């Protein structure tokens, strides 16, 4: 009995000590974190003048990066910051108020969504490129795949396309598969990617046996993926890329200048280099 009482006393003392100790340590950690937070803010507080943010479909990654360099050479003192992703994700971001100046998507639908919400600056929307859809397979794959119908073969276990809900390339892929009456038969083999570059990556990494991506994407990783065939144009909606300036942007003139560069002969030449086809003029 006596021993339990003593144990109780020492336990009480220990708790009291650790509470005080803990308090000091806690305040110290809090102070450090606050310091770090302030320090990081200080650095972030130095904006470069004339910076524009361009949200672009991820299939435009390589080509727009080059166009961006050209733009910054043309207009010294400006900075172009890119935000690449699936067109659907990007559209949602803009709708939610993301501070974006220019938007380029891989399908009319996503730009339409933005336009419907009255988020595009007047007369700034232009079509600037077209693309093709290709069927690809991993470069090292030994599975015989020569036409899109071969996708029904048993040897083809997994096929990747973009998520039709959010990715334009996925929608085009679904259209094409339905066009060839393959959608219902190969549906079980489908794996969805969050954007077309992820789809490309799955094929390149040999995680899947085949995939449907843009012809420009296949060019970027030509060593890791092999093009089986180019889908005929009538099998899917035309792949047209629109671009537009977002309403209310602080850098309206530079944003419009960027769009102008993209549709200019200089910009078009760069797009060509990466495999994009010229857009038909919009009505």
């Amino acid at each position, binding site marked *: 009995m006596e021993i339990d009482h003593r144990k109780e006393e020492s336990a009480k003392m220990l708790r009291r000590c650790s509470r005080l100790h803990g308090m000091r340590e806690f305040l110290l950690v809090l102070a450090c974190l606050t310091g770090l937070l302030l320090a990081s803010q200080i650095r972030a507080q130095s904006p470069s003048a004339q910076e524009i943010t361009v949200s672009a479909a991820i299939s435009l990654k390589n080509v727009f990066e080059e166009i961006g360099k050209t733009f910054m050479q043309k207009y010294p003192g400006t900075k172009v910051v890119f935000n690449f992703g699936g067109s659907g994700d990007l559209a949602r971001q803009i*709708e939610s108020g993301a501070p974006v100046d220019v938007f380029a998507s891989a399908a009319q639908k996503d730009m339409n969504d933005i336009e419907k919400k009255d988020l595009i600056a007047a007369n700034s929307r232009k079509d600037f490129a077209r693309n093709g859809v290709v069927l690809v397979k991993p470069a090292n794959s030994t599975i015989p795949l020569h036409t899109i119908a071969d996708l029904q073969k048993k040897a083809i276990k997994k096929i990747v396309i973009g998520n039709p*809900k959010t990715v334009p390339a996925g929608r085009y892929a679904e259209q094409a598969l339905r066009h060839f009456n393959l959608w219902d038969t190969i*549906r079980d083999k489908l794996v969805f990617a*969050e954007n077309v570059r992820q789809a490309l990556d799955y094929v390149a*990494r*040999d*995680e899947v046996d085949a995939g449907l991506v843009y012809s420009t994407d296949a060019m970027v990783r030509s060593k890791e993926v092999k093009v089986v065939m180019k889908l005929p144009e009538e099998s899917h909606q035309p792949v047209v890329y629109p671009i537009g300036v977002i309403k209310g942007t602080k850098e309206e003139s530079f944003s419009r200048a960027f769009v102008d560069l993209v549709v200019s002969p200089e910009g078009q030449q760069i797009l060509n280099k990466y495999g994009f086809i010229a857009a038909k003029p919009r009505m």
Partner: protein
Amino acid sequence: MEEDASGRNMDESVLFSLRLSLQVAIAATVLVVLVGTGMSFILARKSFRGKEILDILLTLPLVLPPTVTGYYLILFMGRNGLLGNALFRWTGWSIMFTWYAAVLASFIVALPLMIKTTRAAIESVDQNLIKVSYTLGHGELKTFFKVILPLSKKGIIAGAVLSFARAMGEFGATLMVAGNIPGKTNTMPIAIYTSASSGDWSKANMMVVFFTLVSAAFLYIANKLSKKGF
């Protein structure tokens, strides 16, 4: 009604996602309890070279972002991965893009939670009780099952509940290894993400409500279990 890529209508697909999430979480939790209890015992009671390193490796998924964990999982289990490659060559099967991958992802991220709580519970068992058990003729294994395990029950249950909750909510690593395949691997968190990304707010709302109710119900049950002195 509108159909998703698996051919289900909205209600069916929501129910499917819920069922899949529960299935994955339960499977992952069972694995976590078995492996976690064993690992906790080894870490609590044994000393050997490399114990520190093992401890750190097992705790890493707790502090790494789920996407980093997902990355490592792809590295190991992808079709071209360190282990996945051998598996594919032997059986022609890959774990990627299957619901087993979701179980694996949940298992890896929940394991450290289980080990932390269970190990503490095992370590808090009175050493004298273990010594007494030995003197009464029971070896290490028997003592574990007859003395240590019963006295660590609370910790094990707490760990299991935490693990289940973590598994239900797993998103980042799961997306990377199981992918987002409607009707196959779109657990609820993934399905909610997809719906929100595509602006399908009504579907997202429905799933969020379902998910919250189910999670709250599980928490309630777990609380009741731990109070009863189960």
